[in-house]
């Protein structure tokens, strides 16, 4: 496996859906190619950092306006039926 093929298979590898022979080939390549190893490592960290970041809260005023709009829609639907 060459470097270009590693990049093409990167997403499948990180998602754990690469078939076992291909994964073995890729990991053998990683064991001797520092550049690819760093790309795989930093790409994995990129996903993890996003996954571990703080959730954005739903502000209470935003939530209240949503609920008010929904209740208004419920009422209007009830009137029209």
């Amino acid at each position, binding site marked *: 496996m060459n470097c270009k093929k590693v990049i093409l298979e*990167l997403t499948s590898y990180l998602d754990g859906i690469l078939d076992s022979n291909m994964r073995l080939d890729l990991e053998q390549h990683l064991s001797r190619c520092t550049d690819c190893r760093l790309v795989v490592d930093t790409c994995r960290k990129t996903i993890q*950092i996003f996954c571990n970041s703080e959730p954005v809260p739903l502000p209470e005023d935003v939530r209240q306006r949503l609920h008010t709009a929904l209740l208004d829609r419920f009422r209007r639907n009830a009137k029209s039926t």
Partner: protein
Amino acid sequence: MVPCQMSVTGLCAQPPGAHWILSATDPKPLASAIVRDDEAILVSAAKAGDTAAFEELVNRYERKIFRLGMNITQNREDAEDVMQDAFLKSYQNLDRFQGDSRFYTWLVRIAVNEALMKLRKRRPNQVSLDEPLTDSDGEDSVFREIEDWGPSPEKKFAQVELNEILNSVIGELDPIFRVAFLLRDAEGLSTEETAQILGISSAAVKSRLLRARLKLRQKLNKYFRRSETQ
């Protein structure tokens, strides 16, 4: 990687939710303690006119839809509009939902469309869902910036600063890559669900996801490379 659920720029939020009665002035946990597998039952009840069932669906997904709207539009007011429109439209068109996908997937599809419309209105000449013809940040440029980030590069930054960085880099992504990344990696949807929502093939989702991940990696490199700490 186990797909996770997303935050403002980030992901993995959504604790197993308490369920709330929407119409109450002070929301209270729903006594029935409905489990997540009952989505189809709630949808059926809502279709039959049970507004409490629809409220339960709203309570279940409102945070996720708001977060998705924030992440796509990068703007709180737009995200609020996206969330409201997504829920109101899904309620109005509930009889059209055939149940051949999860309700949540259908809801996300509506929200993504609303969010992309917001972006197009804001930047009519810049937002396209077509593949870019040229891509200077694509696979070919991967090996231009290869540096070690060390074991926990995010710890170089305070949480607020890190959130700003993540917001900034995801906002720089072309919307077609941003949305693919958000749906697959952030919302934890499958490749097939993402393809269904975006109306593209699974192969196209994989291609966009690869490019999104590589671009984000490249954009984060300047913040996280080890040499920055030395």
